[in-house]
């Protein structure tokens, strides 16, 4: 791995990725990732609204990992941590290609969630901006379903702010789990 690290970094760069994190994601980590990305984009003189959109994608995605990843750090590893007795594991990457920033996010999920997520995301892919806006307002008024730990608006918000439909993919891990990946382009 030591020898391959440079190749690994180059591989990421070739794909336009300038930030990549894989491992346990916490709220504090997400704040720092967000702040660093904001600073980077500021230095590159990205438009403020673009930087805010990238930031918002990273927040929604990272909070999805925190709330829904089926891969956790077990309790015994983290004694005495505040209010949080487990950490969620995922991968988040941010890149730039074809004059657009993009955010990649992946985490393990339970297989039974594949169908529901496919249905939701496919539905969003087919909507134009006006439909997304309407759907967002409807869902916000209605409130979240039982499975949601937030307002159930994260993907719709991302789809609204993205310049292209959200791409997604599932990879089977074993009989219990799949790996869920998304790509949003700003």
């Amino acid at each position, binding site marked *: 791995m030591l020898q391959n690290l440079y190749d690994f970094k180059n591989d990421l760069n070739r794909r336009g990725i300038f930030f990549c994190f894989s491992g346990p994601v916490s709220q504090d980590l997400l704040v720092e990732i967000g702040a660093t990305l904001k600073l980077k984009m500021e230095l590159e003189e990205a438009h403020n609204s673009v930087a*805010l959109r990238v930031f918002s994608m990273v927040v929604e995605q990272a*909070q999805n990992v925190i709330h829904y990843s089926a891969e956790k750090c077990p309790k015994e590893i983290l004694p005495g941590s505040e209010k949080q007795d487990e950490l969620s594991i995922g991968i988040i990457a941010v890149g730039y290609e074809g004059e657009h920033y993009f955010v990649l996010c992946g985490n393990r999920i339970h297989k039974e969630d594949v169908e529901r997520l496919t249905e939701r995301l496919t539905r969003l892919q087919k909507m134009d901006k006006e439909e997304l806006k309407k759907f967002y307002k409807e869902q916000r008024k209605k409130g979240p379903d039982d499975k949601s730990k937030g307002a159930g608006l994260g993907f719709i918000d991302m789809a609204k702010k993205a310049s292209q439909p959200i791409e997604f993919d599932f990879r089977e891990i074993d009989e219990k789990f799949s790996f869920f990946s998304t790509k949003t382009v700003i």
Partner: protein
Amino acid sequence: MENLKIRATKYTPEIIFDCENDQLEIRGESYPENIAEFYAPVFEWIEKYLEELDDREVTVNMELIYFNSSSSKIFLDFFELLDFAAENGKKITVNWIYEADDDDTLEFGVEFQEDFESLNFSLVQKDS
């Protein structure tokens, strides 16, 4: 009743609800991990305040840099309470304050404005 003051953190806004001057302000960023927990005291305060409020004029200033999607739901619930109070004759003005180059915050403001009829909901561009 007492004023409500909550200091800002990196991911929660500053909240200053001043019941002596009838000025309520939410300012900063809002993307806590546990949204319900953070906003519970805010809702508790506002419900009590609206109950005790007579015909004084209330100004609510919302100046958010960034908020996540679950905060957006919370704000809707908050405005619904205010809108209901306005329907019942309370004089409430909400100022949705946004930066000139922040299209998304402006759009959120426009969308909230569309949702409420009784509430005086203004979009205010910040001086740069």
